[in-house]
């Protein structure tokens, strides 16, 4: 009668999908992601990088040579982010700043710094955190200074051009399993995917796991459980519930990812992403397969545990306390993984990649950002699958006796005793 498994699943899904909290949460997250998806474009627009250059004032006639250099530098840029505006005196500059006509203005002090005889330049603005404009000015001044010194040298224009040309520099990760190493872009995408996947797994476990446990406890405390366990075998009920919740969770994630990706691939966004060196097609398909596998494995490992815990608690109020150990376990796994993003080959990682409760996080992370040996992956996956089966089996047993035990939360001893009595 796999029919009843399907009945439990569809009942779980129907109620979940209809619940207001689910609809609202999905909608809110989708809106956030749509905003997030358009963020590159918005930053580009709002940051003033493309459209409007920030106006920077200077006093007419002062350090004309440097100002000329600056003007030349910005004139050469395809999209200058600074526009220089001349004012007759420093007092008027201050006025202009106060009125908002300029974002800031430059002043020069005569005491030269260093040997070049280059004056000290101060950028005056309303806020000390004008990072973008200040760094742009720094680069411009550096160039102006270099040019003012080079002007007197005997270098040819060609040599000068060579001097100013940026060096070609690229990082490449060496891969031992694949024939070719990953390029920097692929590496960047791998880190991003790893990061997203770890956060998604963590959220899936925390949210769906809690949801499953809460629902089972609620069924118990409302005593509807007594009718259900006499209608369908507890095992089918447990798996129906886990699978039903899982399908809903996947559906939710699919909606969210679709919202994000659809917006990221819009022409105005994808151009900007490309200019940052991000290309969605740089994701290694094998990494995606691993992402899906570890996501599923992590989900089922924790979901069965949450189901077992939910089944032994009689009242919803007691649930938080009861699931605390699992919550902590998830948190530890999550934080180790976040820590490991920077040090994927540390000893901690090497040990944790084999511990079943952490391996969905850690092993995936290492596959993403480091190069674990094939045997490491195989061993980790093997341990993980074995422990899912073992924990699923144990959880089913606990569930079988747990759903019929009322009163205070039973101790391990009592559960074992009940298992013997119920012959499960």
């Amino acid at each position, binding site marked *: 009668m796999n029919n009843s498994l399907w009945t439990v699943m569809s009942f779980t899904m129907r109620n979940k999908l209809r619940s207001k909290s689910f609809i609202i949460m999905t909608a809110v997250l989708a809106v956030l992601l749509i905003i997030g998806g358009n963020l590159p474009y918005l930053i580009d627009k709002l940051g003033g990088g493309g459209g409007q250059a920030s106006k920077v004032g200077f006093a007419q006639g002062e350090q004309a040579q440097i100002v000329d250099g600056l003007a030349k530098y910005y004139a050469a840029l395809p999209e200058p982010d600074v526009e220089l505006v001349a004012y007759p005196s420093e007092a008027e500059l201050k006025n202009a700043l106060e009125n908002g006509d300029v974002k800031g203005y430059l002043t020069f002090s005569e005491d030269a710094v260093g040997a070049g005889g280059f004056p000290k330049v101060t950028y005056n603005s309303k806020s000390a955190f004008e990072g973008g404009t200040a760094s742009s000015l720094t680069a411009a001044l550096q160039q102006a200074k270099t040019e003012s010194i080079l002007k007197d040298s005997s270098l040819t224009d060609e040599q000068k051009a060579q001097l100013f040309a940026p060096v070609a520099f690229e990082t490449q990760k060496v891969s031992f399993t694949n024939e070719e190493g990953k390029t920097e872009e692929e590496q960047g995408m791998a880190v991003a995917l790893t990061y997203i996947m770890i956060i998604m797994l963590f959220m899936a476990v925390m949210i769906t796991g809690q949801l499953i446990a809460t629902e089972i406890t609620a069924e118990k405390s409302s005593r*509807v459980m007594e009718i259900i366990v006499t209608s369908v075998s507890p095992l089918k009920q447990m798996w129906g519930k886990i699978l039903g919740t899982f399908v809903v969770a996947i559906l939710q994630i699919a909606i969210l990812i679709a919202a994000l990706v659809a917006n990221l691939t819009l022409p105005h966004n994808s151009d900007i992403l490309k200019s940052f060196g991000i290309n969605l097609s740089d994701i290694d398909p094998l990494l995606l397969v691993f992402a899906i596998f570890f996501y599923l494995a992590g989900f089922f490992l924790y979901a069965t545990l949450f189901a077992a815990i939910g089944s032994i608690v009689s009242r919803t109020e007691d649930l938080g306390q009861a699931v605390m150990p699992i919550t902590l376990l998830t948190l530890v796994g999550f934080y180790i993984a976040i820590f490991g993003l920077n040090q994927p080959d540390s000893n901690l990682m090497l040990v944790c990649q084999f511990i079943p409760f952490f391996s969905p996080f850690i092993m995936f992370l290492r596959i993403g950002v480091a190069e674990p040996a094939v045997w490491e992956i195989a061993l980790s996956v093997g341990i993980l699958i074995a422990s899912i089966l073992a924990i699923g089996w144990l959880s089913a047993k606990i569930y079988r006796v747990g759903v019929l035990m009322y009163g205070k939360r039973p101790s391990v001893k009592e559960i074992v005793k009940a298992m013997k009595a119920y012959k499960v």
Partner: protein
Amino acid sequence: MNTLQVDRIVKNYGEKRAVNSLSFEVSPGEIYGLLGANGAGKTTTMRMILGLILPDEGNIRYLGKPYSQEQLSMLGYLPEERGMYPKIKVSDQILYLAQLRGMSRKDADANLKRWLEKFQVPEYYNKKVEELSKGNQQKIQFIAAVIHNPKIVILDEAFSGLDPVNVELLKSTVKELRDGGTSIVFSTHRMEHVEELCRNITIMHKSNPVLQGPIKEIKKRFPQERVIVASEGKIEGLDAIPGVDKVIVHEHGGYELKVSSPDAGQRILQHAMAQGPVTKFEIKEPTLNEIFIKTVGESHE
């Protein structure tokens, strides 16, 4: 063939024996009473019948067949602790439970509408359970137990918490089920319901079946100990009649006598008629309540 056969079932919880060698049979169209004080083993017995736990010894047969997943669809259960999903519509959860027991959604829907009509609450179809009163939730719960036309229905304290009108309504529904050929195992503390509904009973005490059989025969086994007699005037010298142990004078006329032998009744009647016209004379058979208290109380010692 009897619908339900329970044959010497034994269940131990660790050291403690919860049910000790209990046997009984329920035929089609019969309501069987399962009585006992709290903790006597009734719930364990019902859980074994429902297949939630397996008996350590003995066996249970449903229409002659042992327990299997297929038997689930012929069982209906109304648990003592009532509960439904509070935030889910009546129709959704009843249909869900019916489907779990192997019914098609369409049949279940037709059945549900019929039952709601019967209880005169068709408007509850689209209501959430938490919006209903306690009594009406009970009706819904009852529907959940019988929606799939089970052959065996287990009712644990079916009428508790209901007002007298609804008790009568549910009682007549239970009788209809019985007349339709359903076998019902009925557990309650309300002896008057048992006397009204059940043909055979088992009284359990501390895991043991202490008294079993048809109610009529059980009552015969207990001496008729009470005689009520009343006349228009006073009746003198009742306590001098041989066999009368105690005389209680009722406030509104009449006497209640405790007797030690059944033939004392005839002597009391003659004695009373000699003194004037008798308006009331009754030899009372023991109530089930008395039998229960006596049985369970005696075994205490």
